[in-house]
Protein backbone atom coordinates (compact mmCIF):
# COMPACT_ATOMS: atom_id res chain seq x y z
CA UNK A 1 0.00 0.00 0.00
CA UNK A 2 1.54 3.34 -1.02
CA UNK A 3 2.33 5.94 1.62
CA UNK A 4 0.67 8.54 -0.57
CA UNK A 5 -2.69 7.13 0.52
CA UNK A 6 -4.98 10.12 0.77
CA UNK A 7 -6.20 11.40 4.15
CA UNK A 8 -9.87 10.67 3.39
CA UNK A 9 -9.07 7.03 2.80
CA UNK A 10 -6.84 6.77 5.86
CA UNK A 11 -9.63 8.25 7.92
CA UNK A 12 -12.15 5.84 6.44
CA UNK A 13 -9.97 2.84 7.26
CA UNK A 14 -9.54 3.91 10.90
CA UNK A 15 -13.26 4.59 11.38
CA UNK A 16 -14.21 1.34 9.68
CA UNK A 17 -12.06 -0.72 12.05
CA UNK A 18 -13.28 1.31 15.05
CA UNK A 19 -16.96 0.98 14.24
CA UNK A 20 -16.80 -2.58 12.92
CA UNK A 21 -13.77 -4.27 14.44
CA UNK A 22 -13.21 -7.72 12.92
CA UNK A 23 -11.52 -9.37 15.87
CA UNK A 24 -12.80 -7.57 18.96
CA UNK A 25 -14.01 -10.48 21.03
CA UNK A 26 -13.06 -12.69 23.98
CA UNK A 27 -12.44 -16.29 22.89
CA UNK A 28 -13.61 -18.76 25.53
CA UNK A 29 -11.04 -21.41 24.81
CA UNK A 30 -8.23 -22.58 27.10
CA UNK A 31 -5.78 -22.93 24.26
CA UNK A 32 -5.55 -19.14 23.90
CA UNK A 33 -2.86 -17.16 25.64
CA UNK A 34 -3.93 -13.81 27.00
CA UNK A 35 -2.13 -10.61 27.86
CA UNK A 36 -3.80 -7.76 29.73
CA UNK A 37 -2.44 -4.34 28.96
CA UNK A 38 -3.40 -0.84 30.04
CA UNK A 39 -1.76 2.51 30.37
CA UNK A 40 -1.64 4.86 33.34
CA UNK A 41 -1.73 7.79 30.91
CA UNK A 42 -4.87 6.95 28.99
CA UNK A 43 -8.10 5.06 29.10
CA UNK A 44 -7.16 2.00 27.07
CA UNK A 45 -7.55 -1.21 29.00
CA UNK A 46 -7.55 -4.33 26.83
CA UNK A 47 -6.85 -8.04 26.68
CA UNK A 48 -5.04 -9.46 23.65
CA UNK A 49 -5.61 -13.12 22.82
CA UNK A 50 -3.29 -15.35 20.83
CA UNK A 51 -3.81 -18.86 19.50
CA UNK A 52 -0.57 -20.28 18.18
CA UNK A 53 -0.49 -23.72 16.58
CA UNK A 54 2.71 -25.29 15.27
CA UNK A 55 4.49 -21.96 15.04
CA UNK A 56 1.63 -20.33 13.15
CA UNK A 57 -0.77 -17.72 14.52
CA UNK A 58 -4.09 -19.36 13.83
CA UNK A 59 -6.09 -16.70 15.67
CA UNK A 60 -5.59 -13.32 17.31
CA UNK A 61 -8.24 -11.17 18.99
CA UNK A 62 -8.65 -8.40 21.55
CA UNK A 63 -11.33 -7.04 23.84
CA UNK A 64 -11.85 -4.28 26.40
CA UNK A 65 -12.16 -0.51 26.65
CA UNK A 66 -10.28 1.28 23.90
CA UNK A 67 -10.30 4.55 21.98
CA UNK A 68 -10.57 4.84 18.23
CA UNK A 69 -6.84 4.78 17.64
CA UNK A 70 -6.13 1.76 19.83
CA UNK A 71 -9.18 -0.16 18.60
CA UNK A 72 -8.39 0.40 14.94
CA UNK A 73 -4.63 -0.20 15.29
CA UNK A 74 -5.09 -3.39 17.31
CA UNK A 75 -7.81 -4.67 15.00
CA UNK A 76 -5.68 -4.07 11.92
CA UNK A 77 -2.83 -5.87 13.68
CA UNK A 78 -4.95 -8.96 14.35
CA UNK A 79 -5.85 -9.16 10.68
CA UNK A 80 -2.22 -8.75 9.66
CA UNK A 81 -0.83 -11.53 11.86
CA UNK A 82 -3.50 -14.22 11.54
CA UNK A 83 -2.09 -16.98 9.36
CA UNK A 84 1.52 -15.75 9.70
CA UNK A 85 4.29 -17.67 11.42
CA UNK A 86 5.78 -16.20 14.59
CA UNK A 87 8.92 -14.85 12.88
CA UNK A 88 6.91 -13.02 10.22
CA UNK A 89 4.54 -11.60 12.82
CA UNK A 90 7.45 -10.29 14.89
CA UNK A 91 8.91 -8.72 11.75
CA UNK A 92 5.61 -6.94 11.01
CA UNK A 93 5.41 -5.67 14.59
CA UNK A 94 9.00 -4.41 14.37
CA UNK A 95 8.30 -2.52 11.13
CA UNK A 96 5.16 -0.97 12.63
CA UNK A 97 7.04 0.19 15.73
CA UNK A 98 9.73 1.73 13.50
CA UNK A 99 7.08 3.57 11.49
CA UNK A 100 5.45 4.95 14.63
CA UNK A 101 8.80 6.17 15.93
CA UNK A 102 9.70 7.80 12.60
CA UNK A 103 12.50 5.40 11.72
CA UNK A 104 13.06 3.82 8.28
CA UNK A 105 10.76 0.83 7.91
CA UNK A 106 9.64 -1.80 5.42
CA UNK A 107 6.24 -0.58 4.22
CA UNK A 108 5.58 -3.70 2.13
CA UNK A 109 4.39 -5.71 5.15
CA UNK A 110 2.18 -3.17 6.92
CA UNK A 111 -0.81 -2.99 4.58
CA UNK A 112 -3.62 -0.97 6.24
CA UNK A 113 -1.49 -0.33 9.34
CA UNK A 114 0.21 2.40 7.30
CA UNK A 115 -2.71 4.69 8.22
CA UNK A 116 -1.01 5.30 11.58
CA UNK A 117 2.05 6.85 9.98
CA UNK A 118 1.18 10.33 11.29
CA UNK A 119 0.78 9.30 14.92
CA UNK A 120 3.91 11.25 15.93
CA UNK A 121 2.01 14.47 15.20
CA UNK A 122 -0.11 13.69 18.25
CA UNK A 123 2.66 12.34 20.45
CA UNK A 124 0.28 11.74 23.35
CA UNK A 125 -1.40 9.04 21.22
CA UNK A 126 1.65 6.91 20.43
CA UNK A 127 0.72 4.64 23.32
CA UNK A 128 -2.79 4.19 21.87
CA UNK A 129 -1.41 3.25 18.47
CA UNK A 130 0.99 0.68 19.94
CA UNK A 131 -0.76 -0.76 23.00
CA UNK A 132 -2.16 -3.86 21.26
CA UNK A 133 1.07 -4.39 19.32
CA UNK A 134 3.14 -4.27 22.51
CA UNK A 135 0.90 -6.89 24.10
CA UNK A 136 1.14 -9.25 21.13
CA UNK A 137 4.91 -8.83 20.98
CA UNK A 138 5.14 -9.71 24.64
CA UNK A 139 3.03 -12.84 24.10
CA UNK A 140 5.12 -13.94 21.13
CA UNK A 141 8.46 -13.16 22.83
CA UNK A 142 7.38 -15.02 25.93
CA UNK A 143 6.38 -17.98 23.85
CA UNK A 144 9.61 -17.94 21.96
CA UNK A 145 11.68 -17.94 25.15
CA UNK A 146 9.74 -20.94 26.40
CA UNK A 147 10.69 -22.91 23.33
CA UNK A 148 14.40 -22.28 23.89
Amino acid at each position, binding site marked *: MPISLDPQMMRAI*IMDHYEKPRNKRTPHDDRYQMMHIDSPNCIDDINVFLLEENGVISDCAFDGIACT*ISTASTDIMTELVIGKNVQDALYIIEQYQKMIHEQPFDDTVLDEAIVFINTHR*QAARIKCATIGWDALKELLDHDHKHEK
Partner: protein
Amino acid sequence: MKKIDPYLIRDDFPMFKNKVMMQGKPLIFLDNASTTFKPYAVEKAVNAYLQYETANSHRGDYDLCYNVDVKIDEARATLAKFINAEKREIVFTSGTSMSINLIAYGYGTKYLTKDDEILITQAEHASNVLPWFKVGEMTGCKINYIPLNEDGKLVPENLRKVISKKTKIIAVAHVTNVLGFIVDIKEITKIAHQYGAIVVCDGAQSVPHMPTDVKDLDVDFLSFSGHKMVGPTGIGVLYGKYGLLEKTAPFMTGGGMNAKFDMCGDVTYLQPPSKFEAGTQNIEGIYGLKAATDYLMSLGMENIRRYEDELRTYAIEKLKKNERVILYNEKAESGIITFNIKGVFAQDEATYLNSQGIACRSGQHCAKVLLDYLGEVATVRASLYFYNTKEDIDAFVSALEKGGDFLDAYFA
Protein backbone atom coordinates in the same frame (compact mmCIF):
# COMPACT_ATOMS: atom_id res chain seq x y z
CA MET B 1 -15.38 44.52 45.64
CA LYS B 2 -12.48 44.30 43.19
CA LYS B 3 -13.28 42.61 39.92
CA ILE B 4 -10.90 40.19 38.26
CA ASP B 5 -9.45 41.44 34.98
CA PRO B 6 -7.90 38.37 33.34
CA TYR B 7 -6.22 40.47 30.65
CA LEU B 8 -4.24 42.39 33.25
CA ILE B 9 -3.61 39.23 35.23
CA ARG B 10 -2.10 37.49 32.22
CA ASP B 11 0.79 39.96 32.30
CA ASP B 12 1.78 38.39 35.61
CA PHE B 13 2.24 34.94 34.06
CA PRO B 14 5.27 33.94 31.97
CA MET B 15 3.27 31.19 30.20
CA PHE B 16 1.12 33.97 28.71
CA LYS B 17 3.81 36.62 28.32
CA ASN B 18 6.02 34.13 26.50
CA LYS B 19 3.16 33.40 24.09
CA VAL B 20 3.54 29.65 24.46
CA MET B 21 2.12 27.75 21.49
CA MET B 22 0.78 24.21 21.17
CA GLN B 23 0.43 22.46 17.80
CA GLY B 24 1.37 25.78 16.16
CA LYS B 25 -1.56 27.57 17.78
CA PRO B 26 -1.81 29.94 20.74
CA LEU B 27 -2.20 27.81 23.85
CA ILE B 28 -5.59 27.77 25.52
CA PHE B 29 -5.15 26.15 28.91
CA LEU B 30 -8.29 24.54 30.30
CA ASP B 31 -6.69 21.89 32.50
CA ASN B 32 -6.41 23.89 35.71
CA ALA B 33 -7.84 21.13 37.89
CA SER B 34 -4.70 19.24 36.94
CA THR B 35 -2.17 22.00 37.50
CA THR B 36 -1.88 25.78 37.12
CA PHE B 37 0.50 28.35 35.66
CA LYS B 38 2.86 30.22 37.97
CA PRO B 39 3.14 34.02 38.17
CA TYR B 40 6.47 35.88 38.01
CA ALA B 41 6.11 36.51 41.74
CA VAL B 42 6.49 32.77 42.41
CA GLU B 43 9.43 32.46 40.05
CA LYS B 44 11.05 35.44 41.77
CA ALA B 45 10.59 33.98 45.24
CA VAL B 46 12.03 30.60 44.23
CA ASN B 47 14.94 32.33 42.51
CA ALA B 48 15.62 34.49 45.55
CA TYR B 49 16.27 31.33 47.53
CA LEU B 50 18.35 29.77 44.78
CA GLN B 51 20.37 32.86 43.94
CA TYR B 52 20.80 34.82 47.16
CA GLU B 53 19.48 32.94 50.17
CA THR B 54 20.53 29.29 49.82
CA ALA B 55 21.07 27.63 53.17
CA ASN B 56 19.42 24.90 55.22
CA SER B 57 16.84 25.56 57.88
CA HIS B 58 17.13 24.51 61.56
CA ARG B 59 20.89 25.08 61.45
CA GLY B 60 20.89 28.67 62.54
CA ASP B 61 24.53 29.21 63.44
CA TYR B 62 25.01 31.80 60.74
CA ASP B 63 22.91 34.57 59.23
CA LEU B 64 21.86 32.84 56.01
CA CYS B 65 20.36 29.94 57.96
CA TYR B 66 18.61 32.21 60.35
CA ASN B 67 17.10 34.04 57.40
CA VAL B 68 15.75 30.75 55.97
CA ASP B 69 14.14 29.90 59.31
CA VAL B 70 12.52 33.32 59.39
CA LYS B 71 11.23 32.94 55.83
CA ILE B 72 9.75 29.49 56.51
CA ASP B 73 8.09 30.86 59.59
CA GLU B 74 6.63 33.73 57.57
CA ALA B 75 5.41 31.29 54.95
CA ARG B 76 3.67 29.23 57.61
CA ALA B 77 2.03 32.36 58.95
CA THR B 78 0.85 33.32 55.44
CA LEU B 79 -0.64 29.88 54.81
CA ALA B 80 -2.31 29.96 58.23
CA LYS B 81 -3.90 33.31 57.46
CA PHE B 82 -5.01 32.02 54.04
CA ILE B 83 -7.21 29.30 55.57
CA ASN B 84 -7.81 30.96 58.96
CA ALA B 85 -5.73 28.48 60.92
CA GLU B 86 -3.02 28.90 63.52
CA LYS B 87 0.58 28.89 62.36
CA ARG B 88 1.41 25.78 64.38
CA GLU B 89 -1.38 23.89 62.60
CA ILE B 90 0.28 24.21 59.17
CA VAL B 91 2.46 21.24 58.18
CA PHE B 92 4.42 21.45 54.93
CA THR B 93 4.17 18.31 52.81
CA SER B 94 4.87 17.45 49.19
CA GLY B 95 1.20 17.93 48.34
CA THR B 96 -2.28 16.54 48.88
CA SER B 97 -1.29 12.90 48.39
CA MET B 98 1.39 13.08 51.06
CA SER B 99 -0.89 15.00 53.40
CA ILE B 100 -3.61 12.36 53.20
CA ASN B 101 -1.10 9.53 53.52
CA LEU B 102 0.32 11.23 56.61
CA ILE B 103 -3.09 11.17 58.31
CA ALA B 104 -3.90 7.67 57.09
CA TYR B 105 -0.69 6.20 58.50
CA GLY B 106 -0.11 8.56 61.41
CA TYR B 107 -3.68 8.68 62.68
CA GLY B 108 -5.71 6.00 60.89
CA THR B 109 -3.44 3.04 61.48
CA LYS B 110 -2.70 4.21 65.01
CA TYR B 111 -6.23 4.53 66.32
CA LEU B 112 -8.60 2.46 64.18
CA THR B 113 -9.45 -1.17 64.88
CA LYS B 114 -11.36 -3.89 63.09
CA ASP B 115 -14.64 -2.73 64.59
CA ASP B 116 -14.29 0.75 63.15
CA GLU B 117 -15.38 2.24 59.86
CA ILE B 118 -14.03 4.87 57.46
CA LEU B 119 -16.58 6.57 55.19
CA ILE B 120 -15.60 7.88 51.77
CA THR B 121 -17.55 8.39 48.53
CA GLN B 122 -17.29 7.00 45.03
CA ALA B 123 -16.44 10.48 43.77
CA GLU B 124 -13.12 10.70 45.59
CA HIS B 125 -9.81 11.05 43.81
CA ALA B 126 -7.51 8.01 44.10
CA SER B 127 -5.36 9.93 46.59
CA ASN B 128 -8.32 10.06 48.93
CA VAL B 129 -9.22 6.39 48.45
CA LEU B 130 -6.09 4.28 48.32
CA PRO B 131 -4.51 5.50 51.60
CA TRP B 132 -7.74 4.49 53.37
CA PHE B 133 -7.68 1.08 51.71
CA LYS B 134 -4.21 0.71 53.27
CA VAL B 135 -5.61 1.62 56.69
CA GLY B 136 -8.27 -1.03 56.11
CA GLU B 137 -5.63 -3.61 55.22
CA MET B 138 -3.48 -2.77 58.22
CA THR B 139 -6.16 -2.45 60.92
CA GLY B 140 -9.03 -4.54 59.57
CA CYS B 141 -11.39 -1.56 59.71
CA LYS B 142 -14.14 -1.31 57.07
CA ILE B 143 -14.15 1.18 54.21
CA ASN B 144 -17.73 2.09 53.36
CA TYR B 145 -19.30 4.56 50.95
CA ILE B 146 -21.68 7.43 51.54
CA PRO B 147 -24.16 7.14 48.64
CA LEU B 148 -24.15 10.09 46.23
CA ASN B 149 -27.40 11.67 45.07
CA GLU B 150 -28.74 11.22 41.54
CA ASP B 151 -26.45 13.98 40.21
CA GLY B 152 -23.37 12.33 41.70
CA LYS B 153 -23.14 14.88 44.53
CA LEU B 154 -22.48 14.21 48.22
CA VAL B 155 -25.32 15.69 50.29
CA PRO B 156 -25.37 15.74 54.12
CA GLU B 157 -28.67 13.84 54.39
CA ASN B 158 -27.03 10.84 52.75
CA LEU B 159 -24.31 10.91 55.40
CA ARG B 160 -27.03 10.85 58.09
CA LYS B 161 -28.38 7.64 56.54
CA VAL B 162 -25.14 5.70 56.90
CA ILE B 163 -23.13 7.20 59.77
CA SER B 164 -22.97 5.26 63.04
CA LYS B 165 -20.97 5.05 66.23
CA LYS B 166 -18.57 2.79 64.32
CA THR B 167 -17.65 5.64 61.97
CA LYS B 168 -14.28 7.08 63.01
CA ILE B 169 -13.08 8.93 59.91
CA ILE B 170 -14.98 10.63 57.09
CA ALA B 171 -12.66 11.40 54.19
CA VAL B 172 -14.27 13.53 51.49
CA ALA B 173 -13.31 16.23 48.98
CA HIS B 174 -14.64 19.76 49.39
CA VAL B 175 -14.89 19.94 45.59
CA THR B 176 -14.78 16.66 43.65
CA ASN B 177 -12.34 16.46 40.78
CA VAL B 178 -14.59 14.87 38.16
CA LEU B 179 -17.97 16.49 38.68
CA GLY B 180 -16.91 19.65 40.50
CA PHE B 181 -19.71 19.83 43.04
CA ILE B 182 -19.08 21.94 46.15
CA VAL B 183 -19.86 19.76 49.15
CA ASP B 184 -21.45 21.28 52.26
CA ILE B 185 -18.47 20.36 54.42
CA LYS B 186 -19.66 22.45 57.35
CA GLU B 187 -22.79 20.34 57.68
CA ILE B 188 -20.86 17.10 57.04
CA THR B 189 -18.50 18.05 59.87
CA LYS B 190 -21.37 18.88 62.19
CA ILE B 191 -22.94 15.46 61.66
CA ALA B 192 -19.57 13.69 61.94
CA HIS B 193 -18.80 15.34 65.27
CA GLN B 194 -22.19 14.33 66.68
CA TYR B 195 -21.03 10.74 66.19
CA GLY B 196 -17.48 11.35 67.40
CA ALA B 197 -15.95 10.93 63.94
CA ILE B 198 -13.32 13.22 62.45
CA VAL B 199 -13.48 14.80 58.97
CA VAL B 200 -10.44 14.60 56.73
CA CYS B 201 -11.13 17.05 53.93
CA ASP B 202 -9.41 16.91 50.54
CA GLY B 203 -9.09 20.56 49.55
CA ALA B 204 -7.03 20.07 46.38
CA GLN B 205 -9.83 21.33 44.12
CA SER B 206 -11.42 23.81 46.53
CA VAL B 207 -8.65 25.76 48.31
CA PRO B 208 -7.25 27.26 45.05
CA HIS B 209 -10.67 28.45 43.90
CA MET B 210 -12.69 29.77 46.84
CA PRO B 211 -12.30 31.18 50.36
CA THR B 212 -11.48 28.49 52.92
CA ASP B 213 -12.01 29.01 56.64
CA VAL B 214 -11.05 25.91 58.61
CA LYS B 215 -12.52 27.32 61.81
CA ASP B 216 -15.88 27.94 60.18
CA LEU B 217 -15.91 24.57 58.40
CA ASP B 218 -14.65 22.97 61.63
CA VAL B 219 -12.80 20.29 59.61
CA ASP B 220 -10.30 18.23 61.55
CA PHE B 221 -7.75 17.88 58.76
CA LEU B 222 -7.46 19.63 55.40
CA SER B 223 -5.02 18.88 52.58
CA PHE B 224 -4.07 20.91 49.52
CA SER B 225 -1.37 21.21 46.87
CA GLY B 226 0.71 24.23 45.91
CA HIS B 227 0.85 23.57 42.19
CA LYS B 228 -2.94 23.74 41.78
CA MET B 229 -2.89 27.26 43.29
CA VAL B 230 -0.22 28.92 41.10
CA GLY B 231 2.58 27.61 43.33
CA PRO B 232 5.42 25.21 42.62
CA THR B 233 5.05 21.44 42.31
CA GLY B 234 6.19 19.22 45.15
CA ILE B 235 4.94 21.46 47.95
CA GLY B 236 1.63 21.41 49.76
CA VAL B 237 0.00 21.66 53.13
CA LEU B 238 -1.61 19.52 55.76
CA TYR B 239 -3.75 21.50 58.16
CA GLY B 240 -4.77 19.76 61.34
CA LYS B 241 -6.42 20.89 64.56
CA TYR B 242 -3.51 21.16 66.94
CA GLY B 243 -4.80 18.59 69.42
CA LEU B 244 -5.18 16.07 66.61
CA LEU B 245 -1.74 16.82 65.21
CA GLU B 246 -0.35 16.12 68.70
CA LYS B 247 -2.12 12.75 68.68
CA THR B 248 -0.89 11.87 65.17
CA ALA B 249 2.27 9.81 64.79
CA PRO B 250 4.98 11.11 62.45
CA PHE B 251 4.77 9.55 58.98
CA MET B 252 8.50 9.96 58.53
CA THR B 253 11.24 10.15 61.13
CA GLY B 254 14.70 11.63 60.85
CA GLY B 255 16.50 14.92 61.09
CA GLY B 256 14.70 18.09 61.98
CA MET B 257 11.80 16.39 63.76
CA ASN B 258 13.39 14.99 66.92
CA ALA B 259 14.19 16.91 70.08
CA LYS B 260 16.75 14.39 71.27
CA PHE B 261 17.58 10.71 71.17
CA ASP B 262 20.18 8.45 72.72
CA MET B 263 21.81 5.12 71.97
CA CYS B 264 19.29 3.27 74.13
CA GLY B 265 16.61 4.19 71.60
CA ASP B 266 14.90 6.81 73.73
CA VAL B 267 13.59 9.43 71.35
CA THR B 268 11.74 12.63 71.99
CA TYR B 269 10.01 14.18 69.02
CA LEU B 270 9.51 17.88 68.48
CA GLN B 271 6.02 19.29 68.71
CA PRO B 272 3.84 19.70 65.58
CA PRO B 273 4.30 20.93 62.93
CA SER B 274 8.07 20.19 63.13
CA LYS B 275 7.28 16.61 64.19
CA PHE B 276 6.01 15.92 60.66
CA GLU B 277 8.78 17.68 58.75
CA ALA B 278 11.64 15.17 58.83
CA GLY B 279 14.59 15.80 56.57
CA THR B 280 15.45 18.95 54.68
CA GLN B 281 12.24 20.47 53.41
CA ASN B 282 11.46 21.68 49.89
CA ILE B 283 12.66 25.13 50.91
CA GLU B 284 12.39 26.83 47.52
CA GLY B 285 8.95 25.25 47.24
CA ILE B 286 7.95 26.84 50.55
CA TYR B 287 9.22 30.24 49.31
CA GLY B 288 7.23 29.76 46.09
CA LEU B 289 4.10 28.63 47.89
CA LYS B 290 4.21 31.70 50.11
CA ALA B 291 4.48 33.94 47.04
CA ALA B 292 1.60 32.06 45.37
CA THR B 293 -0.55 32.47 48.48
CA ASP B 294 0.24 36.19 48.71
CA TYR B 295 -0.66 36.50 45.02
CA LEU B 296 -4.04 34.76 45.48
CA MET B 297 -4.84 36.80 48.59
CA SER B 298 -4.04 40.03 46.74
CA LEU B 299 -6.64 39.06 44.12
CA GLY B 300 -9.05 37.92 46.81
CA MET B 301 -10.45 34.40 46.98
CA GLU B 302 -14.05 35.57 46.86
CA ASN B 303 -13.24 37.57 43.71
CA ILE B 304 -11.66 34.49 42.18
CA ARG B 305 -14.69 32.36 43.04
CA ARG B 306 -17.09 34.91 41.56
CA TYR B 307 -15.08 35.34 38.40
CA GLU B 308 -14.84 31.56 37.82
CA ASP B 309 -18.56 31.27 38.42
CA GLU B 310 -19.25 33.98 35.83
CA LEU B 311 -16.92 32.30 33.33
CA ARG B 312 -18.49 28.90 33.95
CA THR B 313 -22.01 30.26 33.42
CA TYR B 314 -20.84 31.86 30.17
CA ALA B 315 -19.31 28.56 29.01
CA ILE B 316 -22.30 26.42 29.98
CA GLU B 317 -24.74 28.70 28.14
CA LYS B 318 -22.68 28.44 24.99
CA LEU B 319 -22.06 24.70 25.26
CA LYS B 320 -25.77 24.02 25.70
CA LYS B 321 -26.39 25.46 22.24
CA ASN B 322 -24.28 22.71 20.71
CA GLU B 323 -26.49 19.64 20.33
CA ARG B 324 -23.52 17.33 20.07
CA VAL B 325 -22.24 18.27 23.53
CA ILE B 326 -23.35 16.06 26.43
CA LEU B 327 -22.85 17.95 29.73
CA TYR B 328 -22.53 15.82 32.85
CA ASN B 329 -22.37 18.43 35.57
CA GLU B 330 -24.38 21.42 34.47
CA LYS B 331 -25.43 22.03 38.09
CA ALA B 332 -21.91 22.02 39.57
CA GLU B 333 -20.71 25.26 41.13
CA SER B 334 -16.96 25.04 40.45
CA GLY B 335 -14.93 25.74 37.32
CA ILE B 336 -14.99 22.07 36.34
CA ILE B 337 -16.96 21.25 33.18
CA THR B 338 -17.32 17.56 32.35
CA PHE B 339 -18.61 16.60 28.92
CA ASN B 340 -18.47 14.35 25.88
CA ILE B 341 -19.19 14.84 22.21
CA LYS B 342 -21.87 12.44 20.97
CA GLY B 343 -20.31 9.42 19.30
CA VAL B 344 -16.71 10.45 20.00
CA PHE B 345 -14.48 8.67 22.49
CA ALA B 346 -13.30 11.12 25.16
CA GLN B 347 -9.61 10.73 24.48
CA ASP B 348 -10.13 11.26 20.76
CA GLU B 349 -11.95 14.51 21.49
CA ALA B 350 -9.09 15.64 23.74
CA THR B 351 -6.63 14.85 20.93
CA TYR B 352 -8.69 16.93 18.55
CA LEU B 353 -8.68 19.81 21.06
CA ASN B 354 -4.90 19.43 21.37
CA SER B 355 -4.62 19.86 17.60
CA GLN B 356 -6.45 23.18 18.06
CA GLY B 357 -4.04 24.29 20.80
CA ILE B 358 -6.57 23.61 23.56
CA ALA B 359 -5.46 21.71 26.66
CA CYS B 360 -8.23 19.60 28.21
CA ARG B 361 -8.06 16.33 30.05
CA SER B 362 -9.80 13.11 29.11
CA GLY B 363 -10.00 10.28 31.50
CA GLN B 364 -11.77 7.51 33.19
CA HIS B 365 -11.20 9.63 36.29
CA CYS B 366 -12.91 7.07 38.46
CA ALA B 367 -14.67 4.40 36.49
CA LYS B 368 -17.21 3.55 39.12
CA VAL B 369 -18.59 7.06 39.45
CA LEU B 370 -18.80 7.51 35.73
CA LEU B 371 -20.53 4.21 35.17
CA ASP B 372 -22.97 4.59 38.05
CA TYR B 373 -23.90 8.22 37.63
CA LEU B 374 -23.06 9.11 34.06
CA GLY B 375 -23.40 5.86 32.16
CA GLU B 376 -20.07 6.61 30.44
CA VAL B 377 -16.67 4.99 30.75
CA ALA B 378 -14.76 8.18 29.97
CA THR B 379 -15.32 11.93 29.78
CA VAL B 380 -13.49 15.10 28.82
CA ARG B 381 -12.87 17.72 31.51
CA ALA B 382 -12.31 21.42 30.97
CA SER B 383 -11.34 23.25 34.15
CA LEU B 384 -11.11 27.01 34.52
CA TYR B 385 -9.05 29.45 36.54
CA PHE B 386 -9.05 33.21 37.04
CA TYR B 387 -6.63 33.81 34.16
CA ASN B 388 -8.94 32.22 31.60
CA THR B 389 -10.86 34.67 29.44
CA LYS B 390 -14.16 34.67 27.60
CA GLU B 391 -12.06 34.45 24.42
CA ASP B 392 -10.64 31.15 25.73
CA ILE B 393 -14.21 29.89 26.15
CA ASP B 394 -15.19 31.17 22.70
CA ALA B 395 -12.26 29.35 21.08
CA PHE B 396 -13.09 26.19 23.02
CA VAL B 397 -16.80 26.32 22.14
CA SER B 398 -16.05 27.08 18.52
CA ALA B 399 -13.53 24.21 18.30
CA LEU B 400 -16.18 21.85 19.65
CA GLU B 401 -18.66 23.14 17.05
CA LYS B 402 -16.24 22.73 14.18
CA GLY B 403 -14.65 19.58 15.48
CA GLY B 404 -16.75 17.19 13.43
CA ASP B 405 -13.89 14.86 12.82
CA PHE B 406 -11.34 14.33 15.54
CA LEU B 407 -9.18 12.39 13.11
CA ASP B 408 -8.29 15.77 11.59
CA ALA B 409 -5.75 15.77 14.39
CA TYR B 410 -4.04 12.90 12.60
CA PHE B 411 -4.15 14.19 9.09
CA ALA B 412 -4.03 17.99 9.34
